[in-house]
């Protein structure tokens, strides 16, 4: 597809040049922030906290279930 379409290829080249110039941050900065974000929101995550399970509307409170 690329071979025939010169305008599309020119657009790709322009896009790549822009991407190279995009400011990016080091992983040693972004990853710890990501981990911190997860650790802060984990206590409220219904899948990770069994005690929240009691309030989970999908979980049956009785022993028998009719599917």
């Amino acid at each position, binding site marked *: *597809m*690329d*071979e*025939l379409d*010169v305008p*599309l*290829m*020119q*657009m*790709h*080249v322009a*896009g*790549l*040049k*822009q*991407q*190279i110039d*995009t400011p*990016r*941050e*080091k*992983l*040693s*900065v*972004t*990853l*710890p*922030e*990501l*981990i911190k*974000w*997860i*650790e802060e*929101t*984990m206590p*409220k*995550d*219904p*899948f*990770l906290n*069994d005690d929240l399970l009691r309030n*989970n*509307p*999908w*979980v*049956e409170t009785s022993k028998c279930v009719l*599917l």
Partner: protein
Amino acid sequence: MACQGLEQGETVATLKKETEALKTKLETERAKLQDVELNTLAEKIEPVGQLNIKTRRILKGHGNKVLCVDWCTDKRRMVSSSQDGKVIVWDAYTTNKEHAVTMPCTWVMACAYAPSGCAIAAGGLDNKLSVYPLSLDKNENLASKRKPVAMHTNYVSHCTFTLSDMQVLTSSGDGTCALWDVESAQLLQSFHSHTADVLSLDMGPAETSNTFVSGGCDMKAKLWDMRSGQNVQSFETHQSDVNCVKFYPSGDAFATGSDDATCRFYDLRADREVAVFSKDSVIFGANSVDFSQSGRLLFAGYNDYTVNVWDVLKGTRLNILYGHENRISSLRMAPDGTSFCTASWDNTLRVWA
């Protein structure tokens, strides 16, 4: 004429060389920032405890493969679409069907619930996306209220409403994504860069709501600026079609599921792939992925009928969920994070919690 052709040929060859050189330079720039690995940093974090996830509801009613599902913001309703053209709105708590409409085409691959809960959108092989307003009247003829909004030159693979009911984003087999105004059915912005069918898209969460990410058959995942139509970042690490893309809840990262049997995690600020979720025993393509509310868990639905639960930080698989009797086509976390729903080619939907 002949020398014009030669000029064209030279331009193509020089452009190709330039593209390759720029791609190498981009990789070098990206590699400069790789000073730590995610799983090394995650070693000191507590492992996730035992997960007890089971099927809580089975929604039966579709007569054919269910291709797509979307939750309503009220956390109990959902809309699903199937191969035979039927779109059904369910109350998932009671498993009752609230509305049903038959589309004028088969393979309705895309469906979405409007943020207000008052409309749904669906599209597929008809190359269009139609919006249906919902009302409380159960006996209404939904099909007569159909409003065609989007028009592509190939099938519509995915759709989503933006922050309001007024605009929809679509991705299509014609290789483009597009933003449409629902009221006037006008094309507001078109996004060109993929060189093959675009299979999936996802809008950023509220904080990054003018960007969206898309994935396609050209094995690339791309980040777009909705206002300018520019492809801001592009990631090409998958080895086969990217079936699904999903933003991370914080908006700084996204995950992809692909036919190469891996799911990958990309950091947008560092502009690179930071994790690959794969196992030698996982050989079937992943069709749909979604994160848990905190982003610690990644749920992925595969062609081998299972859902794999991955620990995003440590890169390990925590659980395999069995239940469906055919491939999983779509997987969506509920808006409040209490459950997730899977849609499958076995004609059913399952809600897990």
